[in-house]
């Protein structure tokens, strides 16, 4: 393993790990806010109990999210110092603003988690509002940096280095609005499905079923509002990618040859040697319609770009399909639940539905992770699209392989420790209701 591969692998592992916790850190506050708000509004204390029961596991999740985020901010310098020297002046503003939002999030999180004995109920609820806002705003800000890597703007290249920097223009780059919205909404969908799966299991076991059903409804309400918006923002993202990141679109769709009336390729395995996609389903003209709103439009394929400047479709197309597929897995669960809820006028508890929801539970995170992989693998071999290659930005220090191994061990320890704690807790208390009294 060479330095570049080790650095990429470490950055990838760090992100895959951090994204899980960061996602929960965006989604959970919204659910806490809604539950606490409902408790105050309806006077139904069970909402408050549902929210407070999340405090301990969420505390661990947030803590790991914060420390793994610290790892990432250090890795920017430890692994990619030349990327940072190139881009710091353009993406720094996004990170600085995110820093303030994250700071605010950490503060109100502590107040909500630890403040039960020191703050009134109304104050606790009020703390969840800046918490929810700061969490989503920090995501929206930080995604601007990723957007800039995809659609760099706000500078001129003079003698091989960026100058005439316009930080606000760089901040508001073309990819930012759709990436920020799509990504933040995805965090809500992922969290609400993860939580829904947990409560579906509770209802299935018959443990504290009354409260579990309420929580299930709440989380699937959030999903019902946010999931359709994923479709809208996803379409917007595709339009923008078709306009500004044509090579990425070609790799996403495994579209090798530039052609008019391009079909949409679903599934299959792209083979760059032959330029064909084996075992795929093709829907005629649909790619042209999706990308350019015209069934006969020409869509550029990977062959339209100089060799060595395009991403590998084998790393992009399957993850794109996985992302879209995951969405439909969740959509079925959502439709099923709300159909029965509407028909029966009460929270449905058919074992088949509950089992399906448990099955669908991780697909929000799967979709989010694979969407992120699409956007990252889809930009290769560039770290700053069209300007700086990933291979040019890696640290000149040797020994990245040993750093990689060190951090893989760190992540394994953290994951093992957390699973052990959460599972033991489950085993001991059944995770629910009245049996959790202590001496």
């Amino acid at each position: 393993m060479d330095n570049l591969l080790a650095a990429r692998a470490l950055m990838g592992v760090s992100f895959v790990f951090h994204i899980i916790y960061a996602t929960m850190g965006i989604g959970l506050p919204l659910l806490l806010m809604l539950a606490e708000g409902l408790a105050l509004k309806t006077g139904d204390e069970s909402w408050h109990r549902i929210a407070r029961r999340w405090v301990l596991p969420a505390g661990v999740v947030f803590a790991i999210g914060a420390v793994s985020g610290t790892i990432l901010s250090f890795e920017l310098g430890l692994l990619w110092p030349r990327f940072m020297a190139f881009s710091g002046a353009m993406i720094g503003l996004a990170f600085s603003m995110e820093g303030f939002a994250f700071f605010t999030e950490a503060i109100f999180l502590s107040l909500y988690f630890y403040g039960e004995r020191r703050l009134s109920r109304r104050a606790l609820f009020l703390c969840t509002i800046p918490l929810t806002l700061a969490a989503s705003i920090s995501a929206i800000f930080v995604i601007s940096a990723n957007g800039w890597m995809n659609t760099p703007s706000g500078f001129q290249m003079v003698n091989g280095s960026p100058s005439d920097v316009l930080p606000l223009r760089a901040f508001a780059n073309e990819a930012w609005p759709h990436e920020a919205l799509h990504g933040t909404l995805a965090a809500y969908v992922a969290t609400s499905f993860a939580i829904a799966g947990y409560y579906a299991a509770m209802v299935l076991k018959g443990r504290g079923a009354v409260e579990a059903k309420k929580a299930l409804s709440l989380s699937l309400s959030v999903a019902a509002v946010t999931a359709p918006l994923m479709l809208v923002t996803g379409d917007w993202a595709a339009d923008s990618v078709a306009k500004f990141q044509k090579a990425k679109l070609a790799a996403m769709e495994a579209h090798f040859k530039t052609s008019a009336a391009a079909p949409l390729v679903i599934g299959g395995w792209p083979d760059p040697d032959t330029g064909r996609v084996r075992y795929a389903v093709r829907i005629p003209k649909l790619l042209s319609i999706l990308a350019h709103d015209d069934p006969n439009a020409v869509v550029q394929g990977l062959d339209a770009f100089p060799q060595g400047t395009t991403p590998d479709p084998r790393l992009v197309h399957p993850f794109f399909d996985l992302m879209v597929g995951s969405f439909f897995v969740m959509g079925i669960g959502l439709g099923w639940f709300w159909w029965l809820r509407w028909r029966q006028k009460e929270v449905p508890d058919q074992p088949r539905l509950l089992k399906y929801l448990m099955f669908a539970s991780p697909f929000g995170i799967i979709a989010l992770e694979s969407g992120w992989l699409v956007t990252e693998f889809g930009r290769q071999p560039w770290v700053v699209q069209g300007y700086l290659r990933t291979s040019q930005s890696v640290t000149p220090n040797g020994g990245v392989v040993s750093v990689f191994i060190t951090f893989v061990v760190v992540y394994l320890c953290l994951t093992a420790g957390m699973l052990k704690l959460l599972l033991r807790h489950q085993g001991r208390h059944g995770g629910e209701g009245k049996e959790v009294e202590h001496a």
Partner: protein
Amino acid sequence: MPDPVSLAALVAALALVLYALFGGADFGGGIWTALAFGPRAREQREALFNAIGPVWETNHVWLIFVVVTLFTAFPAGFAALFIALMTPLVVALVGINFRGAAYAFRHYGRASGREVPFSARVFEIASVLTPFALGMAVSATAAGSITIENDVVSTGTGIWFNPFTVMGGVIGLCICAYLAPVYMTVRVKGALQEDFRNASIAAGVALGVVTAVMIPLALQTAPEFSHRLLGSWPMLCVILAVLAGVTTQLLLLLRRFRLAQVMTGVTVVLTLAGFAAALHPDLIIQELPLRAAAAPRSTLIAYLTVLPVGAAVLVPSLWFLYWTFRGEPAPELPPAGKEP
């Protein structure tokens, strides 16, 4: 308008000082958990543990703030520093991770009714390791063993076994060990308060001794730094830091804890200010001036404009946090699932 490079450098230094004051006390809590002594060792640990709980995450955001300020305002400097300081930064990072996770696990374990001794050990070890590594990293910028030629950053051989950087690590440790018990004297009463008072006095002596030893050591191993340190402004900071340190010890002896708490902070601020003043106008001594490391003017101005807006949200929120969790540290979380 004053020069944006200097202003941005001031912000970076200020962020580092705030991290030292808040994050440092946090690490100090871990150090004194390991060093808990006497018949009330258990109570000392409990009090430290409960005091850290609600604020540790916030305390560590200052570090992210330092990193973000560096790469926004001094991208070339950030790149050079992170190439040169890879070793101690990786150690610190591993420490920060294990410390945060161990703390959270321990908290969670305790709230669900189990002691988690392994997590407690990890927490203590990481609390010692991290400030030591960070102290080494910070002092290495002044040691004079990092060189930059034709954009290639290299560190002299043996930079991490150099007495100057090792001593820098020890000073980092002592600063943390000094802050935590002084803060604690204000928050507890009775015999426990006396324990923390004794710990504070001991740590104060230790910090005084190591910083005093550092000066002859610097004269030998980091001549440029010591030359600048014994110049005009930095020297003033040094003298004032010594005075503030002595005053703190006297206040502790007289049991004027609130004033002592303030003076401890002042001592640490002046110590770090002396260091920063001696480093000025460089980011890496003699090799990389702040001006050469800085981002373009437009970025600096955008950053400095965002700052007061962010501060307007942050400062009242921080105040509310520390105000809410003032006074006697208590286990703030009820056991898992129990109704309040």
